[in-house]
Every structure is written in structure tokens, then in C-alpha cells.
């Protein structure tokens, strides 16, 4: 049973190894319902491994993952999708050869009923109303992300920034409780980054979706996150509110290297 104060997502003592390489060791943190939590860390710190473990693509060697109070550690991605976990990918993963609208529609796949019997029982007005509701949600998403003009365009023809937006739209169409964004603004210019940051904030505020993201763009992370978790060499080295984490010596050390460079950074800050 989830208590009111229990986090929506709880990662407890998670470890993951590939052969002799320990990608994650004893990683624990929680994502509070209704928050934006960012995972940051230098390249190779294990951010994407962590993401893949939480979304079920990797199976951890040890530790537990709880979602809304229930243990989902052993569940495969489709089962997690049904529970309301949606994600995007660092290297855009869209259904090539399909249109924007088709891609978004596939986001509802997890919630479709299967089986002949279901279809028989479910037929008629209730079903039609359900279909209408879905179409409405899709329209709302398309409006919200300002992609009306490309709805019938094949996704592979779109520029990078728009592809990222379509991926976000598809994740939203899954009607998630937790939306996981893997580097949502990687490779974007300033303007695109600002647009995306605004969309992410709106998703939290207007749609009530909790967000967990991995991101390299420090400015954006510090601007919109409620909570930041810092990974280095597969371990959590700091966590807290953005301004706390920013001043943490361990974090500065991890990003700039300890000793000389870190000292220089401190000098720069003092100046």
C-alpha cells in the first residue's frame, strides 16, 4: 500500500553489472509524485543504464524498483507501460515509415483491450465513447505540443527538434503517471531547448504527470527541476534541490576533476 508521502517511484539499492563493469552500484533515490526529478552526471556515469533498468530494458543484478508502492523489478517493459510508465529515448526512437499521427496513436497501444471476448463485451456505445475520448486526448496532445501542421507528415522527414517533440507526444498518449525523458534537449539549439523546457513544465503542471529526466544541459536542469540526483561511476554522489547540488563539492569534483580544476572553479565563483 502506498502511503500519501511515499514516492511514486522508489529505486532501492539498485546494482547492475555488464560482465566485470559495474554500471550501477547500490543506487537509491525516490521520485515524489508531481515533481520533476533530474538525474545528472558526467558521461559514463550510468544515467542511461539507470533509465533502462527503471523502464525494464535491463534487469538489475540487485535491488528493487517500486512504482506506486508495488514492486515492479521483475516486470517487462510492456507490463510497466500498462502501469503508466512512459519513456523517450536518447537517440530518437520513432516508428519509421509512419506518420506523426500514427506514431502518436501507437502510444495508446498499452491500454487497448485484447481478445475476441473483450471486443464482444466491449462493443457498442461504451467502446465508441472510449474511442472518442482517446481521439480527444490525441487532439489535445497535438495542440499542446504545437505539431498540428505536421500531423500527416512521415516522421523520418522531420527535423530533429520536431522528432523529439513527436516522441514526447507519443509518450503522453500513453497517459503516463511517470514520464521518463532521456536527454530531452540533447543536440537542440537555445530556442528549441527553451520550447522543450516549457513543454516539460506544462506537462507537469497541466497534465499532472510526474517527470524523471536525464539531461546534460545544466541550465535547463537547474531551471525546471524540483529535485536533482547526481551519479558518478554508477553511484549516487549527491541529491537535493538544484541550488544545493550545484554547490556540493563532490559534484563540482566529478564534473571538473578534483584538485586544480575544482579549485579554479571555486576561485571563479568567489571572484
Amino acid at each position, binding site marked *: 500500500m502506498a502511503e500519501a508521502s511515499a514516492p511514486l517511484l522508489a529505486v532501492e539499492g539498485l546494482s547492475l553489472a555488464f560482465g566485470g563493469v559495474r554500471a550501477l552500484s547500490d543506487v537509491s533515490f525516490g521520485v515524489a509524485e508531481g515533481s520533476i526529478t533530474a538525474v545528472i552526471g558526467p558521461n559514463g556515469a550510468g544515467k542511461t543504464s539507470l533509465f533502462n533498468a527503471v*523502464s525494464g*530494458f535491463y534487469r538489475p543484478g540487485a535491488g528493487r524498483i517500486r512504482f506506486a508502492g508495488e514492486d515492479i523489478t521483475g516486470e*517487462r*517493459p*510492456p507490463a510497466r*507501460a*500498462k502501469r503508466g510508465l*512512459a*519513456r523517450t*529515448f536518447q537517440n530518437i*526512437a*520513432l*516508428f*519509421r*515509415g*509512419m506518420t506523426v499521427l500514427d506514431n502518436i496513436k*501507437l*502510444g495508446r*497501444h*498499452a*491500454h*487497448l483491450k*485484447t481478445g475476441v471476448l473483450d471486443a464482444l463485451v466491449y462493443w457498442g456505445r461504451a467502446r465508441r465513447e472510449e474511442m472518442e475520448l482517446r481521439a480527444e486526448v490525441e487532439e489535445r496532445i497535438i495542440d499542446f505540443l504545437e505539431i498540428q501542421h505536421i500531423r500527416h507528415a512521415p516522421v523520418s522527414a522531420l527535423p530533429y527538434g520536431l522528432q523529439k517533440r513527436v*516522441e514526447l507526444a*507519443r509518450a503522453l498518449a*500513453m497517459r503516463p503517471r511517470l514520464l521518463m525523458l532521456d536527454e530531452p534537449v540533447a543536440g537542440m539549439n537555445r530556442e528549441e531547448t527553451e520550447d522543450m523546457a516549457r513543454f516539460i513544465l506544462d506537462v507537469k503542471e497541466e497534465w499532472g504527470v510526474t517527470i524523471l529526466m536525464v539531461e546534460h544541459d545544466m541550465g535547463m536542469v537547474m531551471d525546471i527541476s524540483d529535485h536533482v540526483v547526481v551519479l558518478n561511476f554508477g553511484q549516487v554522489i549527491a541529491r537535493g534541490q538544484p541550488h544545493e547540488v550545484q554547490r556540493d563539492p563532490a559534484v563540482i569534483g566529478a564534473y571538473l576533476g578534483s584538485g586544480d580544476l575544482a579549485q579554479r572553479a571555486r576561485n571563479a565563483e568567489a571572484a
Partner: protein
Amino acid sequence: MDWLFLAEVSLAGLGAGALYALTGVAFVLIYKATRVVNLAIGEILMLGGYAFFGFAAGAGLPVWAAIPLTILVGALAGAVIERALIRPMLGESPISVFMVTVGLGSILVGLVELGFGADPLRLPEFLPNDPIFLGEAYLAPKVAYGFAAASVLIAIALAALRFSRAGVALRATAGDQGAAYSVGIDVGRVFSLAWVAACATAAGAGIVVGAIGGISPTMGVFGLSVLVVVIVGGLDSVAGALVGGLLIGLIEALAGAFLGGEFKLLATFGLLVLILMVRPYGLFGTHEIERL
């Protein structure tokens, strides 16, 4: 130039081409969903021919029962092959998986020889034998019915791929596996489904091919022409399999009629080389295809 003769040869070529197209679609289904190059598709087709022989001649069942049973055998074979041979190879290099299908082809040939012997057999006659004329051009009735059957099966496959939930899941998996997984599509089930659908289709094609030319353990070489078809059309393109199938069927027939039977293979493989030189991904193939 004898135009009537040309028309008749072309019609016969298109008739054979429809069967290439059908088997090509089966091949493409597997490649699209799972990226496995299935060289055993011709042997699975042969298995279908023998299964039909077993049901119709061996067990003496009526044709209307033997056909669905044969397709069922194909579907079951697909499920077993995927589960027992292909799934354990997940993540191995494409060449290894490719070799597994080569081995599978030999095993199927061996099994059929053990069960039915190595001699060619004739399927019981079940297609009407009245000659068919299109205008003045004569068309062998079996080829005509084969064409019709192939067209119907292809139409069903296309409609299922376009509109059914399973078809949409398959296309999504073909588009991006990770994304399919993340939106709740059970990718493992899609893999099974692709093999089941493809092997059922190939078994169905085996009935028609066997009805036209008889069955023998070596009829799997039909798969060699199908390989040319899908390479010409593009390994992951259903439309390519259709166009490629008709094209290769036509060219084989024309080369056979006007140059002589020994030029059939020369003409098709000549075309293959030509197309690979101009369009290495086939006529309609996707460009990122990983080549073996």
C-alpha cells in the same frame, strides 16, 4: 513477333510470379519484424506441399479439410521454429542466425525424405481442369487458379498488416524495436507472430506450387528464386516483394520461351546483379539495411 504467344507466355509468367510474390511476402514478414534472413522459406513451402499430400492422399481427407490443416501445420512449424531455433539466437550475429536457417532447410529436406521418400510425387487433382481463355490467349487453368489463390492470400496478408492490431504491432516493431517495447508492445510475441504468419503463408503457397508442378524434397529451390525476388524488391518491403515477384516470374517465363530453358536462371540472376549495381537496397528497400 507472335503477339498471342507473347501474351500467353506473359500470363503464365505472371501466374508463376504471383506465387513468388506470395512467398516473398512471407519472407519479408519475417525480415521486417525480426531482421532474420530466412533461407529455409523454400523448404517450409515444401513442407506445406507434403503436409497437404499427407492429409489429402495419405489420410484421404477432402480438400476443404486438407487445406486449412496444411496451413495449420505451417503455422505450428513457424511457432516451433521461432521458439526452439531462432529465439535462442537473439543477439547473435546475423550471419549465425542466417546459418541456422540454412541448417533448418537441410533438416526439413531430410525429414521429408525420411517420411515420404526422395521421389517426386503428384498431389491429388483438386483444381478444375477446363481451359481458360483471356481474349484469345490460353492460360493453363492451374496457373490461373494459382494466381487467384495467391492474390487472395496476399490481399488478406496486406489487410491484416495494415488494419489489424497485430499488424500494426508488427509494423511498429519493424520501425523501432525499443520504441515498440516502451509503448507496451510485446516484441517477443510479435516475433512469434511473424514466424507463424509467414510459415502459414509459405505452407499455403506450397499447396499451390505442388498442385501445379508436383512435389519433391528438392522443390525448396523455389526459395532461391524467392530470394532473388526479395533482394530485387528490397528485403523489408512488402510492395517490393509484390513487384519483384511479378517481375521475376515474367522474366523467367520470357527468357524460358524466347531464349530457351537454360537461360531462365541467367536472366533472373543477371537482373539481380544489375539491380544490385544500381540500387543496392533493392527497388523499395529501406536504406539502413544491414548487409550480410
